[in-house]
């Protein structure tokens, strides 16, 4: 007999899901660190408001300390309070229940706020000229003058403000990652790496170059992500600015045509996307609370497939057009690309939509650098994520926390290597796997990763033509066939 209570069970899990469980216990008291952190956040915000409205301490070191200084200190205290007393290990309790992390009201508000900030930042001049927008960024920029003077021997402009906020976000939320994954050396090293490259190469060095009257240059961004680095007029300007400028041209060419293929062959796409790149750096730090928002359905993969390669083609056509001076269309083409891809896609949508579509929208659907790295990774890299035998029990933590929306589980439960163009090698799937099934590995050669990997060109055409991503396997457990009488492959069954 079946339990009559079971027979009456008709809860609709599809429609209703499972909300946050409640318990009859008091919610834990705010730790003193967290309380103090919140107070500092409030004071820091007040510091900004006072400087922007009344102008007290505006443009002084004290002003910076009493605004951004307090905000950063407050955030760090909150993170310390939150992870204090916890055991080293995966910290995802309640992730799916928090409004701000799950497209709730707060999530939408945050998404719109970041988007609005990017719109104002990118289209400041246009907005001022044609919409009569008040000079919103004038005082926030002026606040940073002492720092800008120290580093670049000039006043801050709004790009300095942007770089500063970006770097602070990477470092403060990087600190959070270091606490969250303090048990995992891969995550710690990787986080320190993105913090280092953002602070040193994307913030400090460009400003120092400016102080020494050298051209603005980011040594960690290459064509086609930083597309103008291979545009003819930019190369001319750099070359004409002297020895350092010439080195920059040389570095840009070396990075795109030599370093990228070699490093991707050796380590996979991750050497750049989750260790060096600034866009990746922000996604891996500030974006971490939203990584589970990336959709991992087949449909998203089909869209991603098209958009990212289209943008790669667009920028390649533009670059070739400029070099060969193919006509006057290139000028308006260049402007449109800068507007739609450079500003709208990579900035406004790429970061603004973190709380709505996950932290890698740009990297996954747009970035042409990621497209090149992806093709290399798919066809001739030694990198793969390996599956540990048949230990997978399909829980899906890996797929949920994959920021690139790869259905990692789909491979793991079949015992297959995961070789996907989009994988940035962040290693979170391996970290969250409760059965130790996934591992990032650089193998002996690219050809032992999947059937057909020994022929990169064939692998490329097959991956382009593929209608489904994850290959089917003839039999999951070949060992269970009768020895010498394996019928699971060839023999046709009865009809």
């Amino acid at each position: 007999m079946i339990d009559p209570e079971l027979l009456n069970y008709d809860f609709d899990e599809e429609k209703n899901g499972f909300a946050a469980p409640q318990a009859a216990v008091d919610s834990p008291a705010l730790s003193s660190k967290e309380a103090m952190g919140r107070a500092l956040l409030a004071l820091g915000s007040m510091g900004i408001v006072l400087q922007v409205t009344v102008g007290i301490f505006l443009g002084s070191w004290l002003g910076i300390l009493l605004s951004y200084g307090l905000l950063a200190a407050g955030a760090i205290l909150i993170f310390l309070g939150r992870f204090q007393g916890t055991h080293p290990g995966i910290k995802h309790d309640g992730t799916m229940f928090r409004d701000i992390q799950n497209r709730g009201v707060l999530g939408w508000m945050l998404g719109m706020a970041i988007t609005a900030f990017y719109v104002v930042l990118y289209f400041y001049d246009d907005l001022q000229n044609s919409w009569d927008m008040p000079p919103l960024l004038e005082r926030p920029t002026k606040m940073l003058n002492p720092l800008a003077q120290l580093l670049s021997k000039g006043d801050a402009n709004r790009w300095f403000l942007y770089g500063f906020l970006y770097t602070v976000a990477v470092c403060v939320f990087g600190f959070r990652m270091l606490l969250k994954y303090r048990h995992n050396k891969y995550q710690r090293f990787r986080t320190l790496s993105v913090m280092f490259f953002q602070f040193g190469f994307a913030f400090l060095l460009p400003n120092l170059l400016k102080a020494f009257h050298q051209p603005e240059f980011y040594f960690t961004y290459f064509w086609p992500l930083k597309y103008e680095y291979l545009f003819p007029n930019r190369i001319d300007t750099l070359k004409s600015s002297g020895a350092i400028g010439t080195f920059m041209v040389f570095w840009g060419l070396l990075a795109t045509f030599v370093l990228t293929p070699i490093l991707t062959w050796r380590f996979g796409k991750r050497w750049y996307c989750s260790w060096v790149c600034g866009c990746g750096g922000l996604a891996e730090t500030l974006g971490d609370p939203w990584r589970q928002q990336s959709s991992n359905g087949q449909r998203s993969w089909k869209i991603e497939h098209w958009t990212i390669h289209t943008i790669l083609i667009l920028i390649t056509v533009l670059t070739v057009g400029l070099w060969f001076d193919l006509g006057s269309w290139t000028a308006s083409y260049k402007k449109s690309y800068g507007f739609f891809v450079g500003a709208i896609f990579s900035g406004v949508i790429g970061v603004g939509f973190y709380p709505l579509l996950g932290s890698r929208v740009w990297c996954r659907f747009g970035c042409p650098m990621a497209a090149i790295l992806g093709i290399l990774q798919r066809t001739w890299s030694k990198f793969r994520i390996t599956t540990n035998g048949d230990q997978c029990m399909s829980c899906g933590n890996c797929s949920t926390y994959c920021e690139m929306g790869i259905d990692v589980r789909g491979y793991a439960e079949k015992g297959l290597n995961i070789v996907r163009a989009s994988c940035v090698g962040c290693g979170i799937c391996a970290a969250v796997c409760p059965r130790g099934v996934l591992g990032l590995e650089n193998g002996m050669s690219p050809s032992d990763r999947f059937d057909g990997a020994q022929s990169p060109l064939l692998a490329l055409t097959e991956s382009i033509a593929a209608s489904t991503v994850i290959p089917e396997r003839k039999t999951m457990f070949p060992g269970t066939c009768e020895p010498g009488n394996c019928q699971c492959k060839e023999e046709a069954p009865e009809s």
Partner: protein
Amino acid sequence: MHVVIIGNGAAGVTAAFRIRQHQPDWQITMISGESKYHYSRPALMYIYMGHMPYQDTKPIEDHVWSDKKIELLRDWVVDIDTQGKKLKLHRRGAMDFDRLIISTGSKPNKFGWPGQDLQGVQGLWGLYDLKLLQENAARTKTAVIVGGGLIGIEMAEMLHSQGIHVIFLVREKSYWNHILPPEESALINQIIVEQGIDLRLETELKEIIDNGQGQVGGIVTTSGEEITCQLVGLTAGVSPNCDMVKETSIATKRGILVDQSLQTSAPDVWAAGDCAEIEMPEGKRNQINQVWYTAKMQGEIAGDNVAGMKRQYEPPLWYNSAKFFDLEYHTYGQVNRDLNQELNLVWQHPREPKILRIVHNRAMETIGIQSMGIRLRHRVCEKWINEKQTPGWVLEHLAEANFDPEFYQRHEDEIRSYLGKQIQ
């Protein structure tokens, strides 16, 4: 040809896809009373703790079912007529089948404790238990969990994550010590306590007390201690779920009896997964395998046989993995099976929760490898055990079996020098 599969767990789903692979035109119907779609049962705890939404625990995208023309029915099968090849469904009435696979899984054990049917007493097996746990937890400050196995510790972690005070009753002297050797078991005791769980070893449940409203008010242990609590988790193991089969002509013992091709005593009826009890040849003990991968394996065998092929189930070299709070555990081959020939080499990290164990017999053949806090490669360990490598050889090649993430602290040298002395 109409194939009906009862149950949409790992075994049933694997079988359905296998049949479709071989037989594009057969009608396949899969019936479950628990959920519309297949989901990963081991992920129940992650839904509860907010690591994953329910939707993400479904390994197969919804559209695939209609793409593959596998019809899904949300209903309970209440009776099987093996002669007339008819099923009786709770909501829809009769249904005909040509071939049938029973993959109904397991159910939690209850041992007739007084008060075990009170509101607030429950196991953790399916989505209905998850729903129930949400309702029961809402009035809970203190929970008692009975039974020192894998589901017990998961339930402790789930409730503890909500701030509920969890008291964990374990009958044995040490957690799970009928499966785990003393060192591993002691390490988990320590982890449980460190996490803030009130672990009571050698403590058994005597009865559950009614609070006067038909709900749990507390429990009494066999030593007479009274504990006030609002929720009791019963996790004292599972047994094959053959409730619906018991009154039919299909032979059962502890589970549904099947031969090695997973066919039951009734023609055109197969059983696979936790519910099946496999009769082995040559007087070997019957197999009841209740882990995820054996369900998948048996589903594959049953599916192939239903589709007209001939395959036999041979249990593979035993392996398993689990996670106790933050501590990962991998085991391969025979470890602590009380074989009198079994000899152990054990290394334990002086400070961190890490253990490595190599088990061998007197002929110096490695028969088991087990680890805690270190990930080991399945294929490598399996190969070594199948090849009967010596423990010395295993120690020599230990690095090849390591599956920890990059940059993790490695211990092969320490392990080799510590254990190497013991085999000479």
